């Protein structure tokens, strides 16, 4: 029973990461992504999925999906029903699942964040319904598989798992919230293992939406740069296999890192604008560090939300400065959105995987597009590839509507 639940453990268990799946425009899997982030490469190209000739912005960071999905428990027909976002989710989940070494019979809960799910199917449904209203072919399939929980179920079926599915949609904080919720479930004794992450792909509606808000960069995405002019959209998925330390040790699993803190707060300032002083952003960094009993002096790297929009970056810069205090002067900060764009519901999850890469491989991901610091930045922006000693890394994610989240990871040695 979910309620009444078993008594929570007297001491919350430690939560470790034993699998990390990632797909971005850098490619599928840890290696190509680690290489791309470490070098600070950028992946933007003209949008190919739909016509952007009448939009202000023309570029995005698009996935190159493999021609065929790898073999799973899915029948060919089931796999064919996955749209682009579902395919990305399946690929990232597969990597995390295999790395964790979980068995198909393990009914692990699946907690996902997304803002659009299979939005492209919804768009196809709309177009056909409006343009050829008497044509019904494929509409029932679209109506069903458009729903995020159906995509998640299909992905769980692919790996032979039948765990409960939870879908969170807290805008751009969704991926971090999903991982944070998984952390809550494990620490509260509700589960020993949870698969958690986020996924999103670029859709015409969302691209047009950010374009209409004039939030998309028409030049180069440059988070925290004084000349920044907006964000760039990207697509991808990130999935983590999380479990208690005891469970991982019993299985002799390879541990990629430890999730030691999660903060979540709401900022009701505005539907699309952050509080100018970043109050909720400050609160989630405080919470995450408080949960981990870590001070800002012990944090070695911050993967900022850093969208590249004037409003987000200035408020986040103020919040980081306020939270870090004197540590800010030497605290390395960067936004990997400079390389792969803003992945919306996937952003927090993919950036969590980036933090694990940083912790395991001991380098900092640079923003090679960064030139002139915004005066609000009291911290150094990592702008060149560099090795570094990183023991603790913080990842920020802030969403439309005011949900803010922070995840804190520790290196596993």
């Amino acid at each position: 029973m979910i309620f009444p639940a078993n008594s929570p453990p007297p001491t919350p268990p430690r939560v470790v990461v034993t699998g990390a799946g990632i797909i971005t425009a850098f490619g599928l899997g840890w290696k190509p992504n680690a290489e791309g982030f470490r070098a600070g490469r950028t992946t933007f190209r003209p949008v190919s999925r739909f016509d952007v000739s009448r939009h202000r912005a023309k570029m995005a960071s698009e996935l190159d999906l493999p021609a065929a999905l790898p073999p799973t428990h899915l029948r060919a027909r089931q796999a064919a029903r996955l749209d682009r976002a579902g395919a990305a989710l399946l690929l990232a989940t597969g990597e995390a699942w295999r790395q964790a070494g979980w068995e198909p019979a393990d009914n692990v809960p699946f907690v996902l964040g997304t803002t659009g799910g299979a939005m492209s199917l919804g768009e196809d449904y709309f177009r056909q319904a409006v343009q050829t209203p008497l044509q019904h072919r494929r509409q029932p399939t679209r109506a069903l598989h458009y729903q995020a929980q159906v995509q998640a179920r299909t992905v769980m079926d692919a790996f032979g798992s039948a765990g409960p599915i939870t879908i969170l949609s807290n805008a751009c904080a969704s991926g971090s919230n999903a991982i944070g919720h998984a952390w809550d479930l494990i620490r509260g004794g509700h589960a020993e293992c949870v698969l958690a992450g986020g996924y999103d792909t670029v859709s015409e509606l969302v691209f047009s939406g950010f374009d209409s808000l004039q939030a998309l960069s028409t030049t180069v995405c440059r988070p925290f740069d004084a000349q920044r002019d907006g964000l760039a959209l990207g697509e991808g998925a990130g999935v983590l296999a999380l479990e208690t330390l005891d469970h991982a040790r019993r299985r002799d699993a390879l541990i990629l890192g430890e999730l030691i803190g999660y903060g979540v707060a709401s900022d009701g300032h505005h539907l699309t604008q952050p509080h100018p002083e970043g109050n909720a952003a400050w609160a989630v960094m405080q919470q995450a560090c408080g949960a981990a009993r870590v001070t800002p002096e012990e944090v070695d790297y911050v993967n900022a939300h850093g969208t590249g929009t004037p409003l987000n970056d200035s408020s986040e810069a103020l919040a980081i400065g306020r939270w870090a205090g004197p540590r800010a002067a030497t605290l390395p900060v960067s936004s990997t959105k400079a390389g792969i764009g803003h992945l919306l519901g996937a952003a927090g999850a993919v950036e969590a995987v980036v933090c694990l890469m940083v912790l395991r491989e001991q380098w900092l991901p640079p923003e090679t597009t960064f030139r002139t610091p915004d005066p609000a930045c009291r911290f150094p922006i990592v702008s060149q590839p560099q090795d570094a000693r990183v023991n603790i890394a913080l990842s920020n994610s802030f969403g439309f509507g005011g949900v803010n989240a922070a995840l804190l990871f520790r290196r596993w040695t």
Partner: protein
Amino acid sequence: MDLSRIFVSGMGAVSPAGWNVAALRLALEQGTPLPIQPLPRPGWEKSLRARLVPQPLHRPAFLAHPRVRRASPITHYAASAALEAAAPLRAAQEGVRRWGVIVCLQSGCIQYSCRFFDEALKDPATASPLLFPETVYGAPASHVAALWENVCLVYTVLGDSSAFLQGVAMGVQWLDEHRVDACIVIGAEENHWLLADALWHLEHSAVISNGAGALCLCREPKRSAGVELAAITDAHPYSARQSRSQAAQTMRRQLGAGSALELLCDGLGDSPRADAPEAAAWRDWAGPRLSPKRIMGEGLMATAAWQCVAACEALARGRFQAANVSVVGANQQAIGVRFIHNDPASTQRFAAPDAQQNSP
């Protein structure tokens, strides 16, 4: 204060029956399906069928708030239900320093999504920037939270109707861990011809509906409306290994046999094929039964919320000792919840035949 006990301090509803719980209750007690309205479908001669939320008799005061003035109907429904559910606690003006808000959606903000996408397809250069933010799933939760001053946690949960009970479970966890002092859990949907069209493609006989339902959860017995949460079953997902029928049966077994004096609030509607797994799981139920979907129509996430609101409302009035809510979602999972009446002073008991008016 008992940390392991959770109470319902209030309920709220917006439905085709009207803008409060009383209207929902009245319609369910009458047991007659509400009138079906034609919903024009562009490009078709024949209209789709719907049961729509009527205009409110009086303009709700919260519509004066700048955050919700331009918001879509789903936000208005969610806000109205949330405010009604929270009214007793807010009136008490003590003990609630930190609120949690959880909004559960299946279809979400479809009206503004369709309007914005239509504009974007015609000419993206003139698509309204005011519309786009309202298309985001998290918009209703953000707006509802803005109506409160001390909201610290806000989540939006997606899924089929069963996700409403996941939202309740999440609220319980927040309360149990003392992260919030009270939590509003809302299930809401709004109508649009495209949604009715999609439902028509999946279930020809279903009648689309819309609205919202909300429960206000708290830890303090003294704040209870006379309803205590007794159990939430595990979520029983549908998978290659577990059919929808099997999941419904397992959920039923976890909820227990119940007694003839308990209420069952089920999710049965007018779609024999879709209803079959749930109907089979509860075939032997001998007690009184309410089926809000038969009266209100297919309200997706709102349906599960109405089921819970109806169950809690009946308990709050002392008409039953216990009420079971069965949610066998369309494509995700089956999950059930059991509420009990928690006011030992009450001697009123429900006369079973009244509730059987809309029994199958």
